[in-house]
């Protein structure tokens, strides 16, 4: 219908660009790209299951990557790590695969209300119609799961619990250890899955210490390439494959391993953990400057998610009286790239289910802006965003007929 080229021309090149929409997509880090490059054509382009040199080279690369990710996740054996084409696929596999494999033991599945849609909608739209009972555990105003409600929900029929370690939109760090203990106390056979995509490399996360049975981590969420993720499945945990086909070295997902992307994921993980303390404190410092700066310089805001026990990269603020999609575009015109929990940006009738689950009214959620920082950003980036954002909010509020209505919150 439109020429997007013309739209981009009309948009123009901003003087400076700061990409903060790391939730949705991320430019691959330079070192990661360099690490991947030889594996597209020069090295290890074989199928790791075939007995020839390019196949063995590929096999070697996959094994090294499994071992690296095993180490960072604190798993016991590389066989517990499974490469999957994405975290969407990994979460679908974890939920469907574990539910189907354990259906003879019970029918109850428990998720939190603020799980990503590739967990929540799997439970509600795929498992519930197949006869599973889905219980959604509520969260408080900062996104912490209601542990009492969780405890009450677990019964002998419970086969699977899925609760993210860190919420992807509002950064809430869940008390996962307590949650696992609570669940296992009431039903040691219940399988505990956690989407750790936003925890990996941001907070200490160790499957052994936490006692989780399954965990998802995603490459693109750590500045690796999109198209690969890992699913940890502890020894003895039963999961059915969702898809059929020729099996390679990855028993839970058929098809040939994507070697260059796996190498990229490995490299991205290596870079994250080479200086975990340095990276996370750098992120936290920038994030705090950004978050506190915005809350201070712009009136009528709401911080979404907690101030403490918050992932070090996450900022999520509602700018009341501003619609989020308009703000996203306004910021884009200034080279600041963010996303919003507004209904308008989601192409659904409703705003972010995470924001409504923490009690935000729709008109509050519509003005939400999600930003994430990474180790790649610097103070000047934050300065620029702090310079641009107040004007953008002011302009849009100036256009609105609802002046002052945000103020009564």
């Amino acid at each position, binding site marked *: *219908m*439109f*020429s*997007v080229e*013309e*739209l981009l*021309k*009309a*948009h123009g090149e901003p003087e400076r660009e700061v990409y903060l929409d790391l939730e949705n997509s991320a430019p691959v880090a330079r070192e990661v790209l360099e690490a991947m490059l030889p594996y597209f054509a020069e090295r290890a382009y074989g199928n790791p299951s075939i007995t020839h040199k390019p196949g063995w080279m590929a096999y070697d690369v996959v094994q090294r990557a499994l071992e690296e990710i095993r180490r960072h996740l604190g798993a016991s054996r590389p066989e517990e790590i499974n490469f999957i084409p994405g975290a969407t696929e990994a979460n679908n596999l974890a939920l469907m695969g574990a539910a189907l494999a354990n259906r003879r033991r019970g029918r109850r599945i428990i998720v939190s209300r603020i799980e990503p849609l590739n967990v929540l909608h799997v439970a509600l739209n795929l498992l519930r119609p197949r006869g599973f009972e889905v219980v959604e555990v509520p969260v408080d105003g900062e996104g912490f799961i209601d542990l009492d409600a969780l405890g009450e929900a677990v019964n002998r029929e419970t086969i699977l619990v899925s609760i993210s370690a860190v919420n992807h939109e509002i950064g809430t760090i869940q008390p996962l250890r307590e949650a696992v203990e609570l669940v296992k106390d009431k039903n040691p056979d219940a399988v505990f899955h956690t989407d750790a995509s936003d925890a990996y490399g941001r907070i200490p996360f160790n499957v052994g210490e936490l006692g989780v049975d399954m965990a998802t981590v995603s490459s693109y969420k750590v500045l690796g390439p999109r198209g690969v993720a890992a699913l940890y499945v502890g020894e003895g945990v039963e999961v059915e494959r969702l898809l059929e086909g020729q099996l390679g070295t990855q028993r839970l997902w058929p098809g040939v391993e994507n070697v260059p992307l796996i190498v990229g994921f490995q490299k991205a993980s290596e870079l994250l953990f080479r200086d975990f303390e340095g990276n996370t404190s750098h992120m936290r410092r920038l994030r705090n400057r950004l978050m506190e700066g915005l809350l201070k310089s712009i009136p009528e805001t709401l911080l979404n998610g907690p101030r403490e026990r918050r992932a070090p990269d996450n900022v999520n603020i509602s700018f009341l*009286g501003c*619609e*989020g*999609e*308009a703000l996203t*575009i*306004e910021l884009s*015109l200034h080279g600041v790239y963010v996303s919003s929990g*507004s*209904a*308008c940006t989601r*192409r659904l*009738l*409703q*705003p972010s289910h995470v924001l*409504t689950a923490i*009690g935000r*009214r*729709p*008109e509050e959620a*519509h003005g939400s802006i999600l930003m994430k920082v990474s180790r790649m950003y610097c103070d000047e980036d934050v300065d620029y965003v702090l310079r641009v954002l107040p004007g953008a909010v002011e302009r849009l509020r*100036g*256009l*609105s*007929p*609802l002046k002052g*209505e945000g103020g009564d919150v």
Partner: protein
Amino acid sequence: MSRVPLPYGPKILELFRNPKNAGPMEDATVSATAGSPICGDVIAIYLKIGEGDVVERASFESYGCAANIATASLLTEMVRGRTLKEAWGISWRELTEELGGLPSIKFHCGTLAVGALRRAIRAYYEERPHPDWLPEEATLEERQALEAEELGERLSRRIGGEKG
């Protein structure tokens, strides 16, 4: 459900960036609002109506997405210098075409702007003789505006109820 062509045309972006006739109008003859903050879409239209029921000036306010702002702005340009009868005749389709098209998911922006305009026109004739071109029944655009407002109410009650 078919694939949604999301991006806007360049004209929408331009009107979003530099809207014409933005802001309330102190000396408006009439004004009206449509939409619901709960759905994230509100448009106010202000009209200064002169001799022969001609729109001398129009302005808008908008709380909503970029398409919302652009459609409202464009509409205020389109009605200027037209009679109210002519202004009434602008449909959401015409408005949308004038914009260079809208992704289908944004069609409601066009209906909302036209809905607000028609409300303002109706308001104007409330204290004046009802012209024969003005239908008694609500038009498509007015009904859509009303539906959006009712949806907002329902959403607000539902989410409020969940919290309680």
